[in-house]
């Protein structure tokens, strides 16, 4: 085992202060790794002792007291609206601005605001930018009337999927990531390559055809490189899935290059 491997394994242990037998021999005989293990152990000790400031108010005691003495007054989370005080704290700038305006008698804000009443602050669901991209690509494909435009749109779709895979690789579970890999596969093989193969000879001039296919091939090559690079920064169970995407991109690159001539 080389030192880099040993040092990485130390950091992957449940507790770096407890070195297992499998690493003990190397650590015992290698000065650098021994120092590394000691530092990692010290770090773990400090992490256990991270200071935590006391809570600002005594909600713990208040909740316990209510549970013990007046249990019927404890409102469960599903029913409890946020307090007006919390609304004020979260929107300090807005409320400050409104207060200033009200103080110089802009009565309009006094009627639009909800002073003195409890607020139900809804948490908004954010829009999904990836979903929006997928719809935009479908619209682009709907508008594509030439093979050139179709291939362009399919290339864009492949780009979006590989970018999404790279973004999700650190956080998604393997099944989810495999889906993205599968979609990428379909777009490259059933989309790009199939449409490039179907393209009739008179769809564009030979020079235009060569230029477009070469460019699409180049982009797939870039995708393969980017995805391969990303495998260094993802969990082990995501690596083979990203590698599959890189392989598909290379496959597509070669096919399109061959068709370009």
């Amino acid at each position, binding site marked *: 085992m080389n030192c880099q491997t040993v040092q990485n394994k130390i950091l992957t242990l449940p507790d770096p202060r407890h070195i297992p037998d499998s690493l003990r021999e190397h650590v015992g005989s290698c000065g650098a790794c021994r120092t590394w293990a000691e530092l990692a152990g010290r770090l773990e000790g400090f992490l256990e002792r991270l200071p935590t400031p006391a809570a600002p108010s005594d909600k713990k005691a208040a909740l316990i007291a209510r549970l013990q003495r007046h249990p019927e007054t404890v409102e469960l989370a599903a029913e409890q609206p946020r307090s007006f005080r919390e609304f004020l704290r979260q929107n300090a700038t807005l409320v400050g601005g409104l207060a200033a305006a009200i103080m110089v008698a802009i009565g309009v804000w006094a009627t639009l605001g909800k002073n003195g009443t409890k607020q139900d602050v809804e948490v908004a669901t954010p829009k999904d930018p990836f979903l929006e991209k997928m719809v935009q690509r479908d619209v682009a494909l709907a508008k594509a009337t030439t093979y050139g435009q179709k291939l362009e749109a399919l290339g864009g779709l492949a780009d979006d999927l590989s970018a999404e895979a790279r973004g999700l690789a650190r956080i998604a579970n393997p099944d989810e990531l495999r889906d993205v890999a599968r*979609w990428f596969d379909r777009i490259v093989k059933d989309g790009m390559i199939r449409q490039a193969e179907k393209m009739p000879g008179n769809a564009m001039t030979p020079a235009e055809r060569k230029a477009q296919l070469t460019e699409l091939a180049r982009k797939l090559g870039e995708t393969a490189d980017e995805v391969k690079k990303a495998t260094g920064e993802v969990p082990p169970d995501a690596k083979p899935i990203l590698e599959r995407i890189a392989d598909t991109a290379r496959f597509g690159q070669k096919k399109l290059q061959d068709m370009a001539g």
Partner: protein
Amino acid sequence: MVRVLLLLISFATLAAWAGAQGPTPPLTAADKMKLFKSNRTLIENLVNHGIDLSAADKPLTRAEECRKTAVTLGNYLERAAKEDRNPDRVAELADLMGNVVRDGLAPNLDEAERTTPAESPDGKRVKELQTIVANDLDNVRSTIPAGKVADSPKVKAALAALTDLKSKFGK
């Protein structure tokens, strides 16, 4: 003098309000994951529609495929309204459906109408599809049950935009 004072106050208030809104915060990793999980199957459908769209070789076929994409979005919209009861999601899906209908389906159907003899089978299908799409757009509103979702201003605006699109389909 009073007008100037009122203008200054209005400006200060608007500035405070705008400042409090702030830029849209970027999505956290957890948000991205939650969104991906919610939309995973829908996205798979959209990828499949994309493949089918790329294989469509005439305006009528592209219009048919666009309609299928719009119907898929409509189905998820219905689920968001009835099961999730999430107005943001309903509004988002209605907007996306509108994009597909306005920018994909309508231009292809127009082109098909322009280039296809009216009495041909394809010509008849064009007319049929126009009626079907208009009904699809009507149905969206009826799939949303009364309550929080239907009353949401975002949902109302999105549905109004869909209703406006009906005029493109002969109604």
